[in-house]
């Protein structure tokens, strides 16, 4: 379960506040919040997988679905993208929600049987094994897209993206070739919730997405700071000279 970030819980109410009901309990929330933010701020549990508080939500995993509406007119929506509204009725653990979540977890267990995170999450929902067919017992990627969004939104280089459709869906560099745009920063591997993006460091060379990056040693202590390509990118983004990044944080 991803840790609840402080920012989720104590976001100060701004101009407009709306009242809504979660599991029948009346709560108030900033009108710009999503249902997930409102729920978590008030201590309601909603499991998430592809959601990360620092990334724009894309609602791919469908684990955070909640049931909104009343009577016969209800439907499942992503709590991570659905905005709160006045008098909105939200059910976080209705029978329909639980059924969908369990199936999603069973499907992910079949897709990525080697992903510990999924097994743990599934166990929390009472799912201990999958009834579905397992194609690759070693697979760990759950296609949550956090790596892609991190590369695009946080790093700002868009070196990787989702490629192909369902039968071949995968995270890849364009045409699966060495990416000119990649700076070797490794943020994708860092954010990956199932540690599936391979990268190695040996003799001052970092290898990631099939490309080798020469690492820059600190001018003072000699420890590696970052790939040279990343330091050049820092210089480009900040407008500061490359030299200003050649000393590591400890020696500065």
């Amino acid at each position: 379960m991803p840790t609840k970030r402080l920012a989720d819980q104590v976001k100060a109410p701004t101009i407009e506040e709306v009242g809504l009901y979660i599991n029948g309990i009346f709560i108030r929330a900033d009108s710009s919040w999503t249902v997930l933010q409102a729920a978590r701020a008030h201590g309601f549990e909603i499991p998430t997988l592809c959601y990360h508080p620092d990334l724009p939500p894309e609602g791919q995993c469908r684990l955070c679905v909640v049931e909104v509406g009343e009577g016969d007119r209800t439907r499942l929506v992503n709590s991570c993208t659905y905005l709160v509204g006045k008098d909105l009725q939200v059910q976080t653990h209705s029978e329909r929600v639980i059924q969908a979540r369990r199936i999603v977890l069973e499907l992910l267990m079949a897709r990525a049987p080697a992903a510990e995170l999924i097994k743990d999450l599934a166990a929390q929902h009472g799912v201990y094994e999958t009834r579905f067919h397992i194609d690759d017992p070693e697979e760990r990627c759950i296609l949550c897209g956090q790596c892609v969004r991190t590369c695009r939104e946080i790093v700002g280089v868009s070196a990787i993206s989702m490629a192909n459709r369902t039968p071949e869906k995968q995270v890849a560099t364009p045409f699966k070739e060495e990416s000119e745009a990649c700076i070797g920063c490794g943020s994708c591997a860092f954010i990956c919730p199932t540690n599936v993006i391979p990268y190695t460091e040996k003799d001052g060379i970092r290898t990631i997405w099939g490309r080798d990056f020469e690492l820059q040693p600190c001018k003072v202590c000699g420890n590696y700071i970052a790939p040279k390509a990343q330091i050049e990118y820092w210089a480009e983004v900040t407008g500061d000279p490359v030299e200003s990044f050649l000393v590591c944080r400890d020696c500065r």
Partner: protein
Amino acid sequence: MPRFESVDHLTQYRREVKARLDPERPQVLVCAGPGCLPLGSEEVAEAFKEALAEKGLDAKVALKSSGCQGLCALGVRVLIRPQEITYQKVTVEDVPEIVETTLVNKAIVDRLIYQDPATEAKSAHKGEIPFYKNQQPIVLRKLDILDPESLDEYLALGGYRSLRKIFFQMTPEQVVDAVESSGLRGRGGAGFPTGRKWRICREAEGAVKFIICNGDEGDPGAFMDRAVMEGDPHAVIEGMIVGAYAIGARQGHIYVRHEYPLAVKRLKIAIEQAREAGFLGKNILRSGFDFDIKVSQGSGAFVCGEETALINSIEGFIGEPDNRPPYPAQSGLFGLPTVINNVETWANVPEIINMGADWYAAIGTEKSKGTKVFSLVGAVNHTGLVEVPMGTSLRQIVYDLGGGIPEGRPFKAVQTGGPSGGCIPEQFLDLPVDYDSLQEVGSIMGSGGMIVMDNTSCMVDVARYFIGFLHAESCGKCTPCREGLTQLKYIYEEITSGRGEMEHLTLMEDLCRAMASASICGLGQSAVNPVLSTLKYFRDEYEAHIKEKKCPALVCRPLLKYTIDPETCTGCLACVRECPVGAISGVKKEAQEIDQELCIKCGLCYEVCQFDSVKRE
């Protein structure tokens, strides 16, 4: 073509064109629709050109290529006006005879006219043939008589008449009201009320708004939007101008898949003609209203027919759907309010304005107004495009228009709404076809695909085919659709290969429930329809596959068994020579035997046997 500076100018020109086009002048219209084109309609048209020249008739007779004339099963179709004689299965060789008999001697070529498969009665005129007689065309009404590349002809048939009414007699608000009270619902699939969609977009904040025509028709076997874009492109443009005026959009996009090159070409020609004539561009007909249209081409991904995926594709991003809300009417193309309607929806709009909302609302059922175009395909005698009022029964469509099932075989099911529609069994043949009735029995209207199946279709195999299609076309963004379809495909392969278990059926039902409620877009949500409807209405077929390891319709190859009847086998060895794996052996002139271990169940022995000695079960 002049540039029309005013409505009066347009009216004056329309009169001139009408006077110029003599209604009594003989016309030969060769169908160049999606069905007839690959059957050689271009060659037929060329042959007419030569034959007419030979008889010295080329100045007297107008020769044209028209849009789809319907009844595609019996193409190439030729329509002779003004007598309205329709010829079918015309080949290059038939052309001199048609010219001699019909155009010179004013008689009918008997062998090329329609013959009813049941009564064997012959009819030469369009109005007598049940396929045409029982239709009520609004969208398709000009397709068979119009040269799609001629704006003059479109104008002569009353084209762009609605502009006079909207610009000078109606406020945009009144246009929205008219479309709303006409009861028109989106023809692309979901059936959302068009007027309400326009109103939401009209009322949405934003100085810049867009309208989009969704021409990304991708259902297997469906070609109604293609036929309209190819056959009557100006109707789509006219509808879009009305819509743009109603919601206040200055820019429109027509999104067409690149597999429809002729549609792209015709739309581009029509847009250029409309610009020249002043129907598009600045200050249209001095109304003070500006609007223009751009054609955007997709690369043929089925999911790009989904509104938000289509918008992403136009914007240059990956064609994957977005979570809704916000809806495109509030935040669509480039984040601005956008109305997306399907080709057929747009093509209905000019007639609603011309004839009035009440006229339109009088056609159809209580909640589904107007007509619907269906592409009727599969096991019917008369495959082709049909347009009938909403509420027409499936029986009427299949038997009266479709001419029944070939060789009198029994009806089994009809699948409506494209790959994600449901299969409707015989007990619902009298169901009135409208949005709500179809949904009640587990199917959808979809964009209007209609596939008829007889007893030679295995319903498990049918569902397997559609799941395979949807699996290949699912974008893979959300877990339920991506992983769900992968698993459904796997389960179907197991069942049709004889490895199915009864637990699979429960698992499929569980999975479908989650997919229907938790997928992002309509593709995943409705992908369950072929599965659930066949499970509901044809469960016995699933059970036969699983429990008895048999395919009752003898379709699923791994479940078939070929044997040779020793009583009737003459030992001619024809099957032995055909068998690609050498599985048949025996002494010449004595009964042969099939080695079941080696047999790959290709069925060649079954086909080649002259004595019906090879048995299939």
